[in-house]
């Protein structure tokens, strides 16, 4: 499978007459763009805002972040099952508006959305302070059910991301990157000496607005399966998650999965990258047993020597993490896990809800409970009062002057467990 990512760099985003990119400036016709995503009777009103790097702006509460992409060559289209048909993607060429992100915003589930600060101390904790953001907020119908609201906003976000990329499909890419990897037997024949590595992408699949989608289907109804890494780059995995903001994998994270990037960059050099196993995290113990047994068995059948296991969320998913690590190690497959910690605001508590002695290689992506001071921003996009309801926030978090004193977990992507950022908790 060969995929070319054609990156068009977005250095600025502005409102304009016509939606197009030129000279690194993405111009957006606001009315046309709103019309393009408003084909949903569940919305009463749709708003678009812009937030740029360095601006004194806070976006809150953020539901999902999506990188604008569309397919320009090859079968299907991005976000299969939502935008494209649910048939295999990852082949051909995909246009990417690099440096731009669609941010969906709305108080769907009080508590479980996060914030993005475009400047100030909060900006260093999330990658979306560096992207030119097109923020989508909607006013849903009054009596809308939460799950319908989530679904409508999720689909509108994906549609907007595709729409913006599609309007720029003729743009000359600034950069082309090719991701190519053959079938497993082909790669094994090429690199017989290299350690064979699989990747378990653990994903929250718990229902009740804690969902991840694979080719448009709800992952909680799927047993672990194997996909080619290229498929993720075309949006095979989509977030439908309204869970604590710091460590949920947004769709942007799935598209730019850093584990895939790292394994790909070392493929054929010091490792042989077998493939990606999307691994649902169930709420029930029986579901956890099933999912982790399938994962370990798949790794064994693929002949893996080692597995990278990334977690999503904290608390009960720590059990899935332990079970995946233990079951692989019991089969002689080496593991490394990527996870954050909930070590308390003072950092003195043990950081996991479950542990197992087999988890000997642990990459920490930070203590979610550490407090951060966020000064007031000139512009607030969304619903500032939502902070008192965010995980990691408390009513006293929002001060009269607009500044915030919150746990790191209120900042979206701050402790992302795909290992997207450089943060990590260490002993002092």
């Amino acid at each position: 499978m060969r995929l070319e990512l054609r990156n068009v760099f977005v250095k600025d985003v502005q409102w304009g007459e016509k939606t197009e990119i030129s000279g690194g400036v993405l111009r957006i016709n606001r009315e046309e763009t709103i019309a393009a995503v408003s084909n949903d009777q569940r919305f009463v009103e749709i708003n678009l805002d812009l937030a740029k790097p360095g601006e004194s702006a806070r976006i809150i509460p953020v539901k999902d972040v999506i990188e604008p992409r569309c397919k320009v060559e090859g079968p299907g289209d991005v976000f299969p099952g939502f935008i494209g048909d649910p048939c295999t993607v990852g082949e051909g060429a995909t246009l990417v508006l690099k440096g731009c992100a669609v941010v969906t915003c709305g108080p769907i589930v009080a508590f479980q959305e996060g914030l993005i600060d475009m400047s100030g101390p909060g900006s260093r904790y999330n990658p979306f302070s560096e992207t030119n953001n097109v923020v989508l907020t909607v006013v849903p119908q009054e009596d809308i059910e939460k799950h319908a609201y989530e679904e409508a906003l999720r689909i509108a976000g994906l549609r907007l991301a595709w729409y913006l990329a599609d309007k720029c499909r003729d743009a000359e890419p600034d950069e082309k990157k090719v991701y190519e990897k053959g079938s497993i037997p082909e790669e094994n024949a090429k690199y017989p000496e290299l350690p064979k590595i699989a990747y378990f992408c653990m994903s929250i699949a718990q229902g009740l607005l804690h969902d991840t989608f694979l080719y448009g289907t709800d992952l909680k109804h799927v047993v672990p399966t194997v996909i080619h890494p290229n498929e993720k780059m075309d949006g095979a995995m989509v977030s439908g998650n309204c869970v604590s903001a710091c460590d949920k994998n947004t769709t942007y994270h799935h598209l730019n999965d850093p584990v895939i990037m790292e394994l790909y960059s070392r493929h054929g050099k010091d490792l042989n990258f077998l493939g990606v196993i999307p691994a649902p995290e169930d709420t029930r113990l029986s579901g956890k047993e099933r999912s982790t047994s399938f994962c370990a068995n798949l790794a064994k059948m693929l002949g893996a020597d080692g597995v990278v296991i990334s977690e999503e969320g904290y608390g009960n998913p720590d059990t899935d993490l332990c079970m995946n690590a233990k079951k692989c190690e019991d089969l002689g497959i080496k593991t490394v896990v990527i996870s954050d910690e909930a070590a308390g605001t003072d950092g003195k508590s043990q950081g996991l809800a479950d542990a197992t002695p087999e988890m000997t290689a642990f990459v920490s992506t930070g203590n979610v409970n550490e407090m951060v001071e966020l000064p007031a921003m000139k512009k607030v996009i969304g619903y500032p009062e939502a902070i008192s309801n965010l995980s990691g926030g408390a009513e006293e978090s929002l001060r009269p002057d607009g500044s915030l004193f919150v746990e790191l977990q209120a900042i979206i992507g701050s402790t992302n467990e795909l290992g997207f950022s450089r943060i990590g908790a260490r002993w002092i």
Partner: protein
Amino acid sequence: MALKVVCYINQFFAGLGGEDMAHTGPCIERKAVGPAMQIDNLLGGDGWVAGTVICGDSYYGEHIEEAREKCLEYIRDMSPDLFFAGPAFNAGRYGVACGDIAAAVAQKLGIPCVTGMYSENPGVELYRSKTFIVKTVDSARGMKQALEKMVELGKKLVSNEPLRPADEEGYFHRGIRKNYFHERNGAQRAVDMLLRKISKEDYRTEYEMPVFKRIKPAEPVKDLSKATVALVTSGGIVPRGNPDRIRVSSAETYGKYNISGIEDLTPEIFESVHGGYDRVWANEDPDVVLPVDVLREMEREGVFGKLYDYVFTTTGTGTAVANAERFGREIGEQLKKDGVDAVILTST
């Protein structure tokens, strides 16, 4: 401003003698003595050693309260900016004395305190959470390096300069996790660590697995029909309006609410404030998380004796284990005191 420094050393390093003088009680010299002279030199223009408190190791160990009080008194009188003890290397009694006095000075006087020990010194595990203990070799041949590290760390602490992690600063960590930015992202570090693990090269995990306490379950209830049963939940069901302001996640408190006379938790009187699950249905009927309605029925049917008059509730999401443990202990004590025989814990 030059720093005023006070040091603590034992009878041996003060030149009073070895084991034969270990019973010497605390005394003070208003100058630098023994290793404190080297500390004075290392401070250069940044400070000076105003006094050295000396105590025999056996005395300190055998009269720990009095020794601590007396030494504290000497130290307080001199109102230092910075305090050093030892280094104790692998000397056990000396290590305990250094750790104890450094911890006490840090706590009572609120000034930076630094001592130094070898990893196997029992003073390390006893006092590492309460004072900075620089890592040293096991004997006084490492005196120079130990003092250099202690002075460097001490100066840094006084200046309020942000510290790097414990392993980089060279002290035994105090059991606190703090966020730092690494050079490389988590995924890059993970792949590296995995390849090293596979090829059996050295690698260092970023978090050693915590060891969980295993609590033995209580004996089964002998006669349920006479038992008082309580409901305790981490599902965040509280009286409407959340009167105790229990946090939606990372809770640091729990609530105790009277349910006597309540047959059914209706949305008019109770709600969920849990920040970790979709509360749509729990808010329509809080009994789905905290089943008062069903237990009332069973109470009437005589399945068990009585439903306890109170429920305890907190939000179990992102909650620090240390807090959860405290909640459990306190709630357990109250239930025990009130003669509760069995508890149904509901989680989400």
